[in-house]
């Protein structure tokens, strides 16, 4: 890795990225990491309800892809949605308030972790249904094509979702209509407890792209530059009217499928340890330092900034009121 089944691969561009951009990537990944650490802790502490799916370990995918997008571009997420929200620029206060079930949250406390959305920034929502978002965001791709403003739409989905019908229906439609789409498969090797190796005919989801005549690339999902490059090329292609691309990011989640007491992680611990060694954040940190773009002080400054924003979000959530019971009957229909 990174290996590629198509034209998508290119010489490493990291050099071309200004250090401040690279530091911003680091800050975003770190924000996701710390947000998820806090979400898990607060979930186990009973301050967050229902179910939480942690994105820790996969930060380079969301941040790498979203770094290649503009404000007018739209994305959709999965049940594992916090990382995509943060990468697209969502407000931590309203995110945390939603997890806390407060009326100041993105969904007024109606959605929770699996349903955070911010249409204002082009984040079309997390989704509790595996593959449920692929068609919705493909509709956003159709909208972008009809709007003729050069916007693109991005579908994030897992290896598990790649075996579901909507993947096929939508890739064919997007390829046939040349929709400005990026299909980003986050292959973290598992669908809950089920290994991708046991449910996929081939190891690479990207190999399916050829069947639709579109580019399919496999990239190291823990190498933010590899992800960024592949995404940037695909965005270019989409904006040029040449249609969709499929990018498979090989990565791994560090925590169990969901945050739940007494739910054993059935994966091989050695495998987990090996992947923890490929921490995408440490990797960018080292690359930046090696290139002279970061030192201890700089890293600490970023850490402080991130923790300050997170503490503010927690404080905002804690201080926010719960909805009133009667608000449950509001928002069923739009006016």
């Amino acid at each position, binding site marked *: 890795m990174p290996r590629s089944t198509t034209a998508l691969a290119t010489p490493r561009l990291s050099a071309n990225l200004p250090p401040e951009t690279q530091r911003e990537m680091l800050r975003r990944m770190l924000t996701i990491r710390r947000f998820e650490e806090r979400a898990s802790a607060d979930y186990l502490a009973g301050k967050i309800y229902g179910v939480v799916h942690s994105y820790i370990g996969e930060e380079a995918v969301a941040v790498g892809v979203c770094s290649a997008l503009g404000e007018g571009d*739209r994305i*959709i997420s999965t049940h594992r949605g916090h990382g995509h929200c943060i990468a697209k620029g969502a407000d931590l206060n309203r995110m945390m308030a939603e997890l806390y079930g407060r009326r100041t*949250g*993105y*969904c*007024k*406390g*109606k*959605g929770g972790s699996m*349903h955070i*959305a*911010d*249409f*204002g920034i082009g984040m*079309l*929502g997390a*989704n*509790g*249904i595996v593959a*449920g978002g*692929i*068609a*919705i*965001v*493909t*509709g*956003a*791709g*159709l*909208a*972008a094509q*009809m*709007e003729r403003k050069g916007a693109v*739409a991005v579908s994030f989905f897992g290896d598990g979702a790649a075996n579901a*019908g*909507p993947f096929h*229906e*939508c890739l*064919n*439609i997007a390829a*046939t209509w040349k929709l400005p789409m990026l299909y980003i498969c986050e292959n973290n090797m598992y669908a809950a407890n089920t290994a991708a190796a046991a449910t996929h005919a081939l190891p690479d989801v990207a190999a399916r792209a050829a069947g639709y005549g579109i580019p399919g690339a496999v990239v190291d999902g823990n190498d933010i530059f590899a992800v960024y490059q592949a995404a940037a090329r695909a965005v270019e292609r989409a904006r040029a009217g040449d249609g969709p691309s499929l990018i498979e990011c090989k990565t791994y989640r560090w925590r169990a499928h969901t945050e739940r007491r007494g739910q054993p992680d059935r994966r091989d611990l050695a495998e987990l340890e090996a992947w923890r060694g490929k921490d995408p954040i440490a990797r960018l940190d080292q690359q930046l330092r090696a290139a002279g773009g970061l030192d201890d002080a700089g890293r600490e400054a970023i850490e402080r900034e991130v923790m300050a924003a997170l503490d503010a979000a927690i404080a905002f959530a804690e201080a926010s009121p719960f909805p009133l019971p009667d608000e449950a009957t*509001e*928002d*069923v*229909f*739009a*006016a």
Partner: protein
Amino acid sequence: MRELTYNEAAIEAIAEEMRRDPRIFYLSTDALPPLLREFGPERVRATPITEAALTGMAIGAAGCGFRPIVDWRQVTFSFVAMDQIVNQAAKIHYMFGGQQRFPILFRASVGGGGQVAAQHSQSPYSMFMNVAGLKMFLPSTPHDLKGMIKTAIRDNNPVISFESGRLNTRKGPVPEADYAIPLGEADIKREGSDVTVVALAWLVHEALAAAETLAPEGVSVEIVDPRSLVPLDAETIRCSVRKTGRLVIADEAGPTAGFSAEIAALATEDAATFAQLAAPPRRVCALPVPIPYSPVLESHVFPNRDRIIAAIREVLHGSRPDVAA
């Protein structure tokens, strides 16, 4: 007044709205020639046979400011899209705290009578009624269909237009002037005093025929056509039952947890209506079986004017001492 068929009325409503609003586009596995001719292949798209994807794409496009129409064609084909309908379209506005509007019109042809067997003769609208977050209607005339489709297209929510296959070629008066019929208003298709028949779509016409047959016997039948299923005009129905004291529900669908069950429940659970009810409500529905192919079998399964007449006679004889019907 000029006459249009039920189907022509639907197309006219859609064409008028598409002329008015460029954000409207139409997705279907078969592009309807009249719409395609006028609006072209970008706004009237012939798609792959992927109703699930079309439904999801409509949600996404609606969330981006468009006003899509998805023609599922037979309601049968909407079942492949059920996840997008139930888990996404019905819930997305609520789940996301009302931050975005999702204006979508879904079209689905329902009903039997064409000897196309179980898969292609379905009337499952109560399955959709049970899902909170969807509006829907099933009109009985070209006039009502045109007016309700126009309202639905202007609504900022997903709305399902169920359209009766049996009525497609039936003509009726449709004004030339622009008009819209609000959702949630039942229409009294015939006034009467002895018994209330709540009927849908094709069975409105069967009920009218039944009323004609019974009139000479001095039986006065009131026929209430809810037209809109969600929102449902319970008050007009209850009012009529309070007046007549008797209730028959005629529906082409099966009875079990059906539209007919909901009407029986909302009439009887209302104290004032219950107090005036002189006889048990009667459901005149399809037999609870898949719809068979052979005409002999199919016509036996579906309700009709004769069964409505029989039900009316029944409820007229059932009677309750305390209620002067």
